[in-house]
């Protein structure tokens, strides 16, 4: 089976269409960024507090907002998170909400306190099972001894109930419960659980309706530090690539590749802005991988161009580039397609946490392939066409650095 049977498309002839498409994407992205006054920064770069909470039933956002207002957190943002079935909510505070002299986690404590007040209240004397640690559960089990292990000696009792407590907590934490049990009967399936154990749990514990899944608190200093670092790292990545390609090929090849990759990064950031998606640290990591990947693709085409330059004696550089692109087309589309399949799977099935990262790669794979043909190659052609006109009798694209120089 073969997709592209010896294609003969005039890529460079159509380069103005391709450049036009690039410009449209670039401008759309830049306009979006301008309209939103900058990129949509995630908490890593903005600073602030985020508390991810899961509820056992659909939460009433207004009720939560009211509760938070009562503890002076009226400025908090509340939004739904993930699939509707999961009943998850993110409560966020700006970095400026807590005074700089307050403890870093003052906001988080206030939020958790407000939630406990409304959703976590249980009968006096009972402990919340949904937010209890294995030690707490084990302690209560040891005291009540529902499995009648006392005759085995205190060490056996302790370790036996510790294991049981860990099994119970692991069960609670695993999907599909993911931290929240609505009814003690759900624990029936855990190994080692008897009705007596469930009785003890029912007596000593109650089940609150919320569980805190994740918290992130980033102070203002860290936020600015990371922002600065992210820019340096991206520039460092581009510079390293430039040096490497300069070393393997020629300076102009390096410049063309870097411009193409920079174009990819800008378009990706633009699309993020258009879709109103946050830029987090993992997104920056994905951008750097994108840089590496886009280079990959560009190198494959450049490799073929270099090989053809070495082999052919008489050919217009533009035609040569066209031929090189056509020769590598099958391979380029295939590998991009395969990588795309892999990262698409990550985007669709990888969950919310890694979603930004996956989206960056999905966009990056497509744009990276496109830019090798539509940006990097035309730049080479432009350069050599202009240079060629200035060299009498010189074939454009020849790497002129002594006899051995042709190897690049």
């Amino acid at each position: 089976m073969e997709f592209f049977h010896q294609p003969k498309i005039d890529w460079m002839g159509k380069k103005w269409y391709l450049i036009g498409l690039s410009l449209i994407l670039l401008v759309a992205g830049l306009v979006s960024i301008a309209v939103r006054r900058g990129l949509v920064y995630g908490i890593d770069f903005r600073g602030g507090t985020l508390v991810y909470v899961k509820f056992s039933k659909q939460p009433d956002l207004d009720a939560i907002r009211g509760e938070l207002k009562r503890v002076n957190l009226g400025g908090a943002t509340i939004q739904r998170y993930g699939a509707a079935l999961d009943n998850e909510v993110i409560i966020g505070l700006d970095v400026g909400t807590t005074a700089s002299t307050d403890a870093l986690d003052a906001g988080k404590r206030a939020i958790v306190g407000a939630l406990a007040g409304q959703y976590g209240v249980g009968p006096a004397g009972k402990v919340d099972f949904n937010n209890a640690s294995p030690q707490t559960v084990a302690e209560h089990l040891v005291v009540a001894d529902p499995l009648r292990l006392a005759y085995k000696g205190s060490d056996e009792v302790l370790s036996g109930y510790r294991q049981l407590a860990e099994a119970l907590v692991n069960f609670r934490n695993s999907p599909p419960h993911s931290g929240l049990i609505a009814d003690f009967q759900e624990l029936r399936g855990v190994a080692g659980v008897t009705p007596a154990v469930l009785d003890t749990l029912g007596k000593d514990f109650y089940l609150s309706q919320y569980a805190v899944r994740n918290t992130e608190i980033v102070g203002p200093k860290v936020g600015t530090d990371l922002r600065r670092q992210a820019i340096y790292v991206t520039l460092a990545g581009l510079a390293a690539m430039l040096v490497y390609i300069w070393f393997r090929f020629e300076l102009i090849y390096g410049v063309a590749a870097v411009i193409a990759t920079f174009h990819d990064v800008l378009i990706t950031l633009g699309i993020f802005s258009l879709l109103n998606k946050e830029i987090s640290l993992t997104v920056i990591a994905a951008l750097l991988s994108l840089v590496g990947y886009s280079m990959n693709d560009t190198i494959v085409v450049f490799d073929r161009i270099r090989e053809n330059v070495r082999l052919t004696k008489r050919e217009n550089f533009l035609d040569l580039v066209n031929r090189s692109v056509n020769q590598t087309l099958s391979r380029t589309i295939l590998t991009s397609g395969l990588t795309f399949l892999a990262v698409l799977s990550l985007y669709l099935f990888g969950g919310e946490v890694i979603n930004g990262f996956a989206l960056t790669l999905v966009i990056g794979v497509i744009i990276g392939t496109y830019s090798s043909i539509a940006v990097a190659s035309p730049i080479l052609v432009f350069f050599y066409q202009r240079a060629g006109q200035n060299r009498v009798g010189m074939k454009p694209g020849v790497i002129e650095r002594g006899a051995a120089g042709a190897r690049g």
Partner: protein
Amino acid sequence: MGIKIRNRVIIIAALIVLCLLGIICYPASEQETVGFPKTFQRLKENVRNRIRLGLDLKGGTHLVLQVQVEDAINVTVDLAQERLRDELRAKAIPANVEKKTEDHKTYLVITGIPQDKTNELQTLVTEQFPDWDLTRRAGDPSARELSLKASAAAAIRTQALEQSKSTIRNRIDQLGVTEPTIAEYGGQTDYEVVVQLPGVDDPSRVKDIIQSTAMLTLKIVQDGPYTSREAALAAHGGILPPDSELLPGRRETGGEGQGAEAWYLVNRIAAVTGRDLRDAQPRPDENGRPSVSFNLTRDGAVRFGRVTGQNVGKQLAIILDNRVVSAPVIQSQITDSGRITGSFTAQQAADLALVLRSGALPASIKYLEERTVGPSLGADSIRHGVVASIVGLLAVMGFMLVYYRGAGVNANLALVLNLIMLVAALAYFGAVLTLPGIAGVILTVGMGVDSNVLIFERIREELRMGKTVGAAVAGGFEHAFVTIIDTHVTTIVSALILFTFGTGPIRGFAVTLTIGLLANLFTSVFVSRVIFDYMLTKREKGEAISI
């Protein structure tokens, strides 16, 4: 098959066995040296133990804190101020010494130096204060500034950071957190420390323990308790007696006013400090209430015995972080042990004992970043990651079979071996697997098969040009090799940059991607070639290969 191929197949088979053993064997206890699993349940457990999970998959807390090293500088300047005053008095130089802080710099200002004593002052400083510089003060000819030399100040700051790190490590160890990470973070002048605590999903207790300065001092009470600072001052005519200080505390004896603020006038010089502690343990006191019992070192015991012997009947203030915790009356000479009582819960007593055992922090701690991943989120992330990996893998493998037929099987075998090597490397090196790390595995699948595509496309091209099958295969591998190296190097370079600048989860991604691509170099070039060579020997001369 030929000798060369057979040897290569043996090498590959040995490698597979080595990798698999690395993943599934884990000793159950100290006695077992090789824990080969005998049941499926045990197999799952072993794999779970072998692969170290990052915080985002296991659940835990990630803290970034900053050591306020200027505190240590402050203490040094304070001590220097004391010493200088003593020296000036000894040499009969009637000058005044004040501490000043300006622009993040703390230094001493000496005013009122008589003309004829300036040289003596200079000699005094050069001899007794070698780490300090004496400079003129603008606008005041009879004044001088004494400030720490830059190198001395830097040394103090670094030492404060190091000591803080080891004290924090000590405290976390005593809390029994498994496999914590305590490392320096950020730039040279940031003095930041990153602390990772796997399995700790409520960090408030740990944060308090880490942050507690825990400076313990025992001082003789001269007078008190007073109801307020003003009352204490008033009782002494507005001026404190020499070598004494006022410290706040709580009235703890029963009856009226219990729990209210109480101020004590104590000796400034401590009888015993935290440095003299040998051990501290939580023990119930005579009334069965939680308290902390401590033992002193030999030197400490000698000094303590002297002070208590001389002050029987007086109160001894037990001071923690400049607050009086309790002030019991000295009944008789005490030498080597004591007890701190107060309204502690059992947990508070245990935590205080822990913190005293680990030693005082030389500088205060400020938290800059805190991330807590609950274990339920970690389990969800693992599930999502595994599902995405399997779907991606199946999609890619399916495509390769359809598009390249027989050669597709070749590529898929190489891909599976690639993944086995990747996971085995993670297990052997103890590298941490994070959620972006799983994404790195998925990316390895997508990019790894790229190498095979390169080779196969080249082989197809060579076949199209009319070469024989054997020559086409050889030509394909040869021509594609350079490009494979190029593409792997660029991706690995960007992964290395990520590793250098990234933290936890991102480093996990860089690690899995790098290992995956390095393994891919081996599987796509060596292993694929061996499989091709083997298939070539099996077919008839002139028969086409399935590609």
